């Protein structure tokens, strides 16, 4: 029976965007069922379940909140997982709780009444009031997590792939919220499993302010590029949808974010030896990238010389906690200005690496790459006329410059002064992008590749 349920569960998970095992051979290794949450004797029964899936032999733990009914409510058909025989309640029908309005109320109640039953603990930064009258709405477009808007002004981010220890998204939001940073959406609290057998718990959800006026920075920037491309021959600074003023303000926000991070969390300084180690790490990553993407080969030597320049840089580099995976898609334009979201770092990296200190120049390089991406994402480089290429380059250059100007003005130091480091990080990012696109969107590989070409000749 359990085997049947596991098969149904795996089948359901395999259809979800957050499931990372697609394409591999997966099996459920273990399901840890936490105690029932207090649902005040109202259907459905709700609990958190941690599902360990082995994909091609590698384990990954997923957080799946479940809702159980005695019957099969028609309205829940789209979130049906399967039937489950419960030792206490008999045969029940299981659903994904995050698709069930009735279950979500119980799932988030602990933030309000601080009831830590159900094997989970809640930490709040102040009293929390959740409007459970207004139905919640699930945001679309997310890859690895599920986010719900609760009421008018709260966002519940549900981590699906969980690892033991503090999630950096929570850690950084917590520190920045306490420091009063305006560069983020303030954190209200988080939910984690209780530590068990001396092992750390898993962070399951975080609750923060929902910025309902927000627009995704990536879409906003692309709207500007689209506007430019609709004009026959105007320059980027002449069209109505010019983005440079926004790019400059965004630069200011990222600079303030870095200032806030440096103040609230650990900082350090890399000496000459550590900078050399950085150059070695980057060189190693480049070699790996070249091995996967032979397109990089012609540039490998020149790109490597950029890392040589870094290795011989006789200077120290201040390091601190950074965003780690900063690009336009991690920015929101709100009516109060720009806000940076999603501090989980590059999801593919192990936790220790994501938490490691780094130069804020890495984030700056990420943003510069992102402007390049936005510019080229409207028309693929391979389909571009030379005139179009000239114009999107102009857009990218104009906005990269505006971003750097805004950053310099707010930070008091210009990233362009750290030319060698900035270039090294940009190369690293672009090489990573080439590999990523090769695997995921082969038709886009020319976007980072043309950047590689430019960086190699610079």
């Amino acid at each position, binding site marked *: 029976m359990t085997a049947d349920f596991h098969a149904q569960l795996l089948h359901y998970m395999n259809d979800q965007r957050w499931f990372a095992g697609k394409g591999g051979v997966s099996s459920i290794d273990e399901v840890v069922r936490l105690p029932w949450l207090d649902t005040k004797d109202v259907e459905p029964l709700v609990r958190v379940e941690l599902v360990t899936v082995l994909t091609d032999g590698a384990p990954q733990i997923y957080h799946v909140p479940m809702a159980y009914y005695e019957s099969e409510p028609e309205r829940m058909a789209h979130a049906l997982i399967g039937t489950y025989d419960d030792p206490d309640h008999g045969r029940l029908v299981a659903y994904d709780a995050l698709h069930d309005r009735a279950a979500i109320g119980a799932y988030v109640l602990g933030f309000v009444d601080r009831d830590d039953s159900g094997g989970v603990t809640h930490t709040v930064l102040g009293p929390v009031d959740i409007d459970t009258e207004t139905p919640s709405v699930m945001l679309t477009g997310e890859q690895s997590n599920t986010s719900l808007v609760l009421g008018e002004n709260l966002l519940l981010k549900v981590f699906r792939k969980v690892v033991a220890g503090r999630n950096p998204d929570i850690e950084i939001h917590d520190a920045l919220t306490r420091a009063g940073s305006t560069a983020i959406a303030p954190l209200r609290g988080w939910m984690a499993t209780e530590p068990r057998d001396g092992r750390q718990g898993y962070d399951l959800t975080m609750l923060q302010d929902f910025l309902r006026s927000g*627009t995704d920075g990536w879409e906003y920037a692309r*709207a500007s590029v689209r*506007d430019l491309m609709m004009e026959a021959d105007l320059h980027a600074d002449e069209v109505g949808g010019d983005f440079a003023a926004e790019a400059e303000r965004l630069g200011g926000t990222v600079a303030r974010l870095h200032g806030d991070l440096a103040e609230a969390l650990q900082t350090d300084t890399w000496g000459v030896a550590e900078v050399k180690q950085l150059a070695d790490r980057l060189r190693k990553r480049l070699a790996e990238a070249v091995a996967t993407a032979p397109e990089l080969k012609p540039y490998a030597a020149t790109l490597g010389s950029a890392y040589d320049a870094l290795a011989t840089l006789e200077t120290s580099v201040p390091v601190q906690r950074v965003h780690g995976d900063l690009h336009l898609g991690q920015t929101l334009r709100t009516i109060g200005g720009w806000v940076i979201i999603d501090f989980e770092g590059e999801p593919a990296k192990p936790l220790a690496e994501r938490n490691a200190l780094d130069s804020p120049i890495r984030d700056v390089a990420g943003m510069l790459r992102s402007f390049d991406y936005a510019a080229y994402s409207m028309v693929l480089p391979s389909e571009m006329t030379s005139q179009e290429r000239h114009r999107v380059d102009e857009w990218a250059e104009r906005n990269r410059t505006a971003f750097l100007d805004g950053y310099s003005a707010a930070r008091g130091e210009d990233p362009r002064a750290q030319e060698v480091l900035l270039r090294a990080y940009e190369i690293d990012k672009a090489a990573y992008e080439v590999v990523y696109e090769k695997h995921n969107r082969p038709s886009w590989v020319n976007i980072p590749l043309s950047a590689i070409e430019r960086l190699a000749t610079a």
Partner: protein
Amino acid sequence: MTESEHQIRPESDDPNWFKRAVFYEVLIRSFKDSSGDGVGDLRGLAERLDYLAWLGVDCLWLPPFFPSPLRDGGYDVSDYTDVAEDIGTIDDFKMFLDAAHSRGIRVIIDFVMNHTSDQHPWFQSSRSDPDGPYGDFYVWSDTDDLYQDARIIFVDTEASNWTWDPVRGQYFWHRFYSHQPDLNFDNPAVHQAMLDALAFWLDLGVDGFRLDAVPYLYEREGTNGENLPETHTFLRKVRTFVDDGWPGRVLLAEANQWPTDVVDYFGDFNTGGDECHMCFHFPVMPRIFMAVRRESRYPISEILSQTPDIPKNCHWGIFLRNHDELTLEMVTDEDRDYMWAEYAKDPRMKANIGIRRRLAPLLDNDIDQMELFTALLLSLPGSPVLYYGDEIGMGDNIWLGDRDGVRTPMQWTPDRNAGFSSATPGRLTLPVIMDPVFGYQAVNVEADLANTSSLLHWTRRMIQIRQQHPALGLGSFTDIGGSNPAVLSFLREFGDDAMLCVNNLSRFAQPVELDLRPFEGVRPIETLGGVEFPAIGELPYLLTLGGYGFYWFRLPKNQEASRP
């Protein structure tokens, strides 16, 4: 004859009438000439009240029509209690006012508190007789060193706020032109003179005043001479004076400041406001232009989110264009450069820190944009103030001096002088617009009346819808954001009346997904056509809009009951 014997009062006695009113600014000299002398006059304006009533105007705002040397469009007043000779007489004014009131149209008049013309007898007396009754009516000084922190407003023409008067042998203070000396509000006799003048017009029956240039009444060393506490004390005095004798009349402040400073002109929050009933919200206007040019809602959303709450008996006044330049003081330097580049391609289009253009030429005569702008004007929070001629898409004449380019005669017909006057064309107060696009042969009321798809008919229809929906006048404002930065969407709600306004600020078609969860199950009804749209469901509500398109939806609360 006492006032109660002759006066016709407007029908409604709602003291908050101004919150739902559509205002219309009309320059008497440029509207209709009844005497054939080339200058519009009060009798001419009275003749056209039927047109204004047809359009749906609730209240006229008349810029100054007092005796004046007309060196600043009449804002240089030389007698506060008379009518300029070329415009008419006090009896003409009474006749006009009764005719307006009998059509349900109220009238507010401009009142210039800060300064007079240098031709005002008070100033002439003050300069020639320093010890006489008017010797202390103005701000005199032996040096031009005082109040250096006060900025110069008309930077194009004035080098200093002080000008030497050879007659009195002293400098006099002026925040605007050097022919407009500032009155000395430290002198109680000036207060009394102002209250007496207000009483004169209130007794005649005017429904309120637009108080010109109120932030500058006082000057104090070490300050910028704007928004001083003494100014607010004086405004409270004026409010009490008006409320005591003539309840239901309004004070509308012109304070070209940031909203956070302007709110002070409403007065005490807890008592519902004890200074002006209304203030102009200046930054909204350039932000609308900015937002459409940038194809981004943020310039508008930002300024509205930064606008503080106002006392409950108060209201904002908003406008797209008026007789002054498009003021760019309320945008950042970078944005100002951009606006100049975009909207004032010819340097003559710039005036002071603004742009001297009418709505239609500012928008390249694009009917879609004119409709979008008007829809925003009629739906954003605040009472809309239309500017005469913009309802037919009139043009401007940038070759006229100062701000006269946007003050040319109203275009009534394709006949001589645009039907404005029977005078010899050369005698007209200002020449009519004659260019091929905006000339009166093409753009006039007669043609627009005959064409039911004209901007004029459309504007009238929109005003009607606005008047049917208290939410658009009295309602709360909620910016609902949405997935698309080019689309500005907001809710206005008042009691059971809920309006959803969705505006595409981009020239291209756009989709938008709106979070309308509180209205789940409601079927929005588009108000221009009465068409019912699909019901709002669990998922974000998807709408598509054409370039510069917009919707005004009614969100009926008791839909089942209202259906047949």
